[in-house]
C-alpha cells in the first residue's frame, strides 16, 4: 500500500513534468517574450518580477510593501474565515441535529446562499462605513495592524466562507452511514455519545471539505473587497494601485503572492487534518 502511494507521488514521469518541466517551460517562454517585446509596463520579464519578490519590504508609492500588504490581507482573511468556520460548523451541527430548527431556518439560508458574496460589498461598506475592528471595542485608533481590519470586509469574508462550511457540515451530519449509528446504539450509546463519537467524526471529512472551500472563497472575496474604491491597504489594493501606475512587475508579483498564499493556506489546512479524514472512501 505504502509502495503504491510513493510511486503515485513521484514515480510517474507525467507528474514530475507537470510540477517542474511545464512551469519551467512557461517561464522560459515568458522571459523570451518579455525580452522580445521590450515593453516592461505591459509584459515585464520574470527576472524583473523576481527582483520585486526578492525585496518584499520595499515601500511602493507610499502604500506599504508587498510584505506589509500581504500580512494585512492575511489577517483580514484569517479573522473573517475563523468567524465563518466557528459559526458555520456550529450552525451546521445544530441544524443537522434538530429537525425542527432545520425546517425553520434552512429555507431562509437557502434563499440567501445563491447571492455571490461580492454583491454584499456595497451594502457592507454602506452599513459599516470604514469602521475597524478596534472601533468595535471602543478604541478609535490602536496603532497596530488591526486598524487595517475593516468590519465591512470581515462581514463579506464571513459571508463568503460561511456558506460552503455550513452546507458541507450540515450535509456531513445528515449523511452519516446508518450502520455506524446502529453499531453505537446497539452497544448502548446515548444520544450525546452518538453525536460526539459517531456523527462528528463521521462528518469530519465533509467539514474539512467545507473549510477548504470556505477558505478559498474567503481569499477570493478579500481580493475583490480590497479593489473597491476607498480601500487603502491590502495586497489587492496594492495590485490595483500598481496597475494604475503601470507597474506591471509589481502587479504580477501581487498575483503570484495571492496565488501562493492561497495555495499555502489550502496545503496547511489539508496537511493538519489529513490524518483524521483519510479513511473516507475506504470504509468497509
Amino acid at each position, binding site marked *: *500500500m505504502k509502495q503504491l502511494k510513493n510511486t503515485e507521488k513521484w514515480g510517474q514521469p507525467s507528474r514530475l513534468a507537470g510540477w517542474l518541466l511545464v512551469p519551467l517551460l512557461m517561464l522560459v517562454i515568458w522571459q523570451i517574450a518579455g525580452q522580445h517585446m521590450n515593453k516592461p509596463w505591459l509584459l515585464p520579464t520574470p527576472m524583473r518580477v523576481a527582483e520585486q519578490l526578492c525585496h518584499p519590504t520595499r515601500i511602493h508609492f507610499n502604500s506599504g510593501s508587498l510584505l506589509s500588504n500581504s500580512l494585512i490581507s492575511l489577517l483580514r482573511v484569517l479573522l473573517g474565515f475563523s468567524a465563518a468556520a466557528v459559526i458555520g460548523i456550529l450552525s451546521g451541527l445544530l441544524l443537522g441535529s434538530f429537525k425542527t430548527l432545520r425546517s425553520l431556518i434552512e429555507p431562509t439560508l437557502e434563499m440567501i446562499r445563491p447571492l455571490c458574496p461580492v454583491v454584499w460589498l456595497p451594502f457592507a461598506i454602506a452599513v459599516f462605513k470604514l469602521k475597524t475592528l478596534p472601533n468595535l471595542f471602543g478604541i478609535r485608533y490602536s496603532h497596530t495592524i488591526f486598524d487595517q481590519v475593516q468590519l465591512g470586509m470581515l462581514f463579506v469574508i464571513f459571508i463568503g466562507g460561511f456558506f460552503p462550511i455550513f452546507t458541507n457540515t450540515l450535509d456531513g451530519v445528515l449523511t452519516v452511514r446508518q450502520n455506524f449509528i*446502529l453499531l*453505537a446504539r446497539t452497544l448502548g*450509546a446515548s444520544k450525546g455519545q452518538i453525536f460526539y*463519537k459517531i456523527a462528528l467524526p463521521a462528518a469530519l471529512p465533509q467539514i474539512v471539505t467545507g473549510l477548504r472551500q470556505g477558505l478559498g472563497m474567503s481569499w477570493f472575496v478579500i481580493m475583490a473587497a480590497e479593489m473597491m474604491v476607498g480601500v487603502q491597504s491590502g495586497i489587492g489594493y496594492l495590485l490595483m494601485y500598481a496597475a494604475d501606475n503601470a507597474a506591471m512587475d509589481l502587479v504580477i508579483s501581487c498575483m503570484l503572492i495571492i496565488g501562493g498564499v492561497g495555495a499555502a493556506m489550502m496545503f496547511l489546512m489539508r496537511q493538519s487534518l489529513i490524518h483524521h479524514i483519510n*479513511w473516507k472512501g*475506504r470504509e*468497509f
Partner: protein
Amino acid sequence: MSTSGLDTQYPSQTGQIPLVQLIGVHQQFLSHHGRDFEALQDVCLAIPAHSFVTIVGASGSGKTTLLNLVAGLLQPTSGRIQYHPKLNLKTDLAYVFQHYTLLPWRTVLKNIAFGLELRGMPRQQRFAAARQWIERVGLQGFENAYPHELSGGMRQRTAIAQALAIQPKLLLMDEPFGSLDDNTRTELQQVLIQLQAGSKTTILFVTHNIDEAITLADRIVVFSKTPGRVLAQIQTDSIKSENRTDKEFTDLFIKIRNLIA
C-alpha cells in the same frame, strides 16, 4: 407448513426461561409502491441462554429483520418479544454486521475499546482489556492499524473482538462472514466457537450458508422465502461435536437444502 419428522421441537428445559422468546411475531413494511410488504409471518422462536442458534434461509427471507427486532431496533407489527428479566438490551447486547461494522476513523485498538468507552471505563483499563481481546482473536501487531488497512478476515476478527469486549449476554451476527473466502471463513468459525465456549454469551447468527449454519449451531432455525416463516428447528448438539460422521453432516445438509429450495 408441516415438516413432519424434521421438526424436532426444542426440549422444554424445565424451569429455564429462554433468553429471548418471539411469540407470533409479524412484521410488515411499507414498500416503495406504498403497498404493505410482509417480511415475517407468525414467527415463534425461543433462544435458550448460552446457546448458539443459527438462522438459515434464502436471501430476502427476513433474517436481518428478525435480528433488528431482537435488537430492539424495530417494533413488531404484531406479536411480542419477551426478554429474560436479567437481560438489559442497553448493556448486554452486541451486533455484528456484514459490512461497515467498524468505525473507519478508529484504530483496531480503539474500535475494540469502543463499547467499553461508551460505558465510561477509564482509558488505561479499556485499552488493557482491548489488548487481551486482540490476542484472543489473533490480531497482535495490528493494534494501531485502521480498518481500511486490514484484510476482510482481520476486519471481522476486530468486529468479533469489539462485540465480545463488552461481554454481552446476547450477540447478534448478520452474515458476518458473508464476504470472506472459504479458508478465512472456516478459520473464523473456529475462532468464534472457541470464544463462545469460554464465555456466557448467547449467539444468534444469521447466514444463508447451510454448511456454516450446521458447523456453528447447537440449534438451527430454517426460514422460508418471503414472507419469512419458521420451517423447522433442528437441535444439532451431536452434529457439532467432534466425532460426528460425514454422513450425519451430509444428511442434515441435504435436508435443510430441500427445505429451503
